[in-house]
């Protein structure tokens, strides 16, 4: 084996009927095998970079008012134009990515953790399973947007509260998913064996259950992330979300909604960014599901 060849065992030469799949570089191979992960991941990474480096991308203070130069059309000076208070839409959209990504990822995280805990408890402790699942049914029967609006009315508008509100609306679905996985795993011989041999429950959960829930959970989390970003935008749009002083895509669109006929760019640019980001996360989720669980891939 010469130095230039890759360090994996190549199959012996096959008869001419079967062509040898072309060996590709690691990255190229990955992209070829999982195009959706690659495209989705790439777009998400770009959005993350935009969010992190927003101050260095030619932006101005996104909250600085200048009523004298309000509702300017997009130009060299104001790439995406200015809004009703003369704020630079380009800067606001770029800074807005921070809110959307923060909300999306935080909700995905919180809902997954909370859902997993409740799902595992419910799956393991038969006595309270029914009660927990009824509560989850109840929560799920309230439309998530209405629940979030009600929770926002309950507390002051803030990004944290948006995250909490959307997480509460999302986690029952996770808990159902996890519970289902737990119930099916419990029947597996190796888990039964572990229980029979007196392994403590936390150890079983940690060693056998959690690793197996990880794959469906990750897939679910990406979809929650995507839907949380849409929900945040919708909440802000109807005035029950992120405080208006913080530029978020939903807020920018909410402020521009009255002018969609005359100044469509105020709504248009944040909408494009939101759609691309959500699309990217959804693609990532699709790809992950295909990669992690081909069986599941066929079902949804």
């Amino acid at each position, binding site marked *: 084996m010469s130095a230039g060849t890759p360090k994996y065992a190549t199959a012996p030469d096959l008869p001419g009927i079967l062509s040898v799949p072309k060996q590709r570089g690691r990255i190229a191979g990955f992209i070829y095998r999982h195009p959706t992960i690659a495209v989705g991941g790439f777009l998400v990474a770009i959005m993350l970079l935009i969010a992190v480096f927003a101050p260095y991308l030619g932006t101005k203070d996104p909250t600085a008012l200048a009523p004298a130069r309000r509702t300017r059309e997009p130009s060299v000076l104001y790439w995406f134009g200015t809004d009703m208070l003369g704020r630079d839409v380009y800067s606001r959209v770029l800074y807005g990515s921070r809110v959307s990504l923060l909300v999306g990822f935080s909700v995905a995280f919180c809902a997954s953790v909370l859902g997993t805990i409740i799902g595992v408890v419910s799956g393991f402790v038969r006595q309270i399973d029914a009660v927990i699942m009824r509560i989850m049914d109840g929560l799920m029967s*309230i*439309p998530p947007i*209405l629940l979030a609006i009600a929770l926002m009315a*309950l507390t002051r508008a803030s990004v944290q509260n948006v995250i909490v509100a959307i997480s509460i609306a999302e986690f029952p679905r996770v808990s159902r998913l996890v519970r289902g996985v737990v119930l099916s795993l419990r029947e597996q011989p190796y888990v039964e064996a572990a229980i029979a041999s007196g392994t403590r429950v936390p150890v079983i959960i940690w060693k056998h259950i959690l690793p197996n829930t990880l794959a469906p959970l990750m897939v679910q989390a990406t979809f929650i992330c995507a839907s949380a970003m*849409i929900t945040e935008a919708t909440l802000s749009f109807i005035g029950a979300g992120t405080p208006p002083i913080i530029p978020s895509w939903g807020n920018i669109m909410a402020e521009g909604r009255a002018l969609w*006929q005359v100044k469509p760019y105020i709504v248009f640019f944040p909408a494009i960014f939101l759609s691309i980001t959500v699309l990217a996360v959804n693609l990532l989720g699709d790809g992950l599901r295909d990669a992690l669980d081909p069986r599941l891939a066929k*079902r949804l």
Partner: protein
Amino acid sequence: MLSYLVRRIVATIPVVLLVALFVFSLLYIAPGDPAAIIAGDQATPADVDRIRASLGLDRPFLVRFFDWFWHILHGDLGTSIFTNLPVTHMIAQRIEPTLSLMTLTLILSLGCAIPMGVVAAWKHGTWIDSAVMMTAVLGFSTPVFVIGYVLAYVFALRLDWLPVQGFTPISQGLWPFLRNLILPSIALGLVYMALIARITRATMLDVLAQDYVRTAKAKGVGQRGVLFVHALKNAAVPIVTIVGIGFAALIGGAVVTESVFAIPGLGRLTVDAILRRDYPVIQGVVLLFSFIYVLVNLGVDLLYTLFDPRIRY
């Protein structure tokens, strides 16, 4: 079958009860004072206190809850603080637009999504498949209101085909009724369509790989016949499931759609009520929504038996 139905319905009671208590306590601790809104800018603080007392908002939590609950048991959802109308009356007024919007949305999205999913499965792996899947992902990556504005701009203002806003009851004719609902239904239906198209495609792929379809093929049933008769029948169960699960999302979407297209439905009623702290209305509507959700999912379970004779209760 009947006993199953009864058991299922009985099982929903604690869910609905729980929702009731949850919503009630949530609103109890929420800030915001309807009395202050009613009194208006010119009122003195003493006036506000008197209004609050006359609305019974100064009573303790449990007293208010049980009072409310007692009335619910008698089919009385209370009286709106702001309009002084019975909540049941307000809901009755608003239910037609919302129900119509949802029904049309369902018809439209099922009507488009199932063929889309079938075609995608049929042409699995081709550009048609990718195009359908891409459209589907786009469908749930765009907020409803953006789609709504674009539709209104193109089809109402530019082309002048359809009205921008409003609602006409079906009793005034089918076309006037449909005219007002087409744009909102498309806007609202896109997400749903995306979901259903994906699930249809996935199930079709699953089914097509199964033995009996291959047998049917071998027996000489034409391509189209195979796809539709055998596969679709099997795809019905997951499709119906997703319709049930997506129902809550549909209600949420209706809230936004109704306000963009000025449709006097339940969604707008709820948002207005929340913003004004019209407690009896919020409680009534949320209770109704969770009740409908539970009913829809009960219906979904019943539909299973229609589509899949193996399932028996």
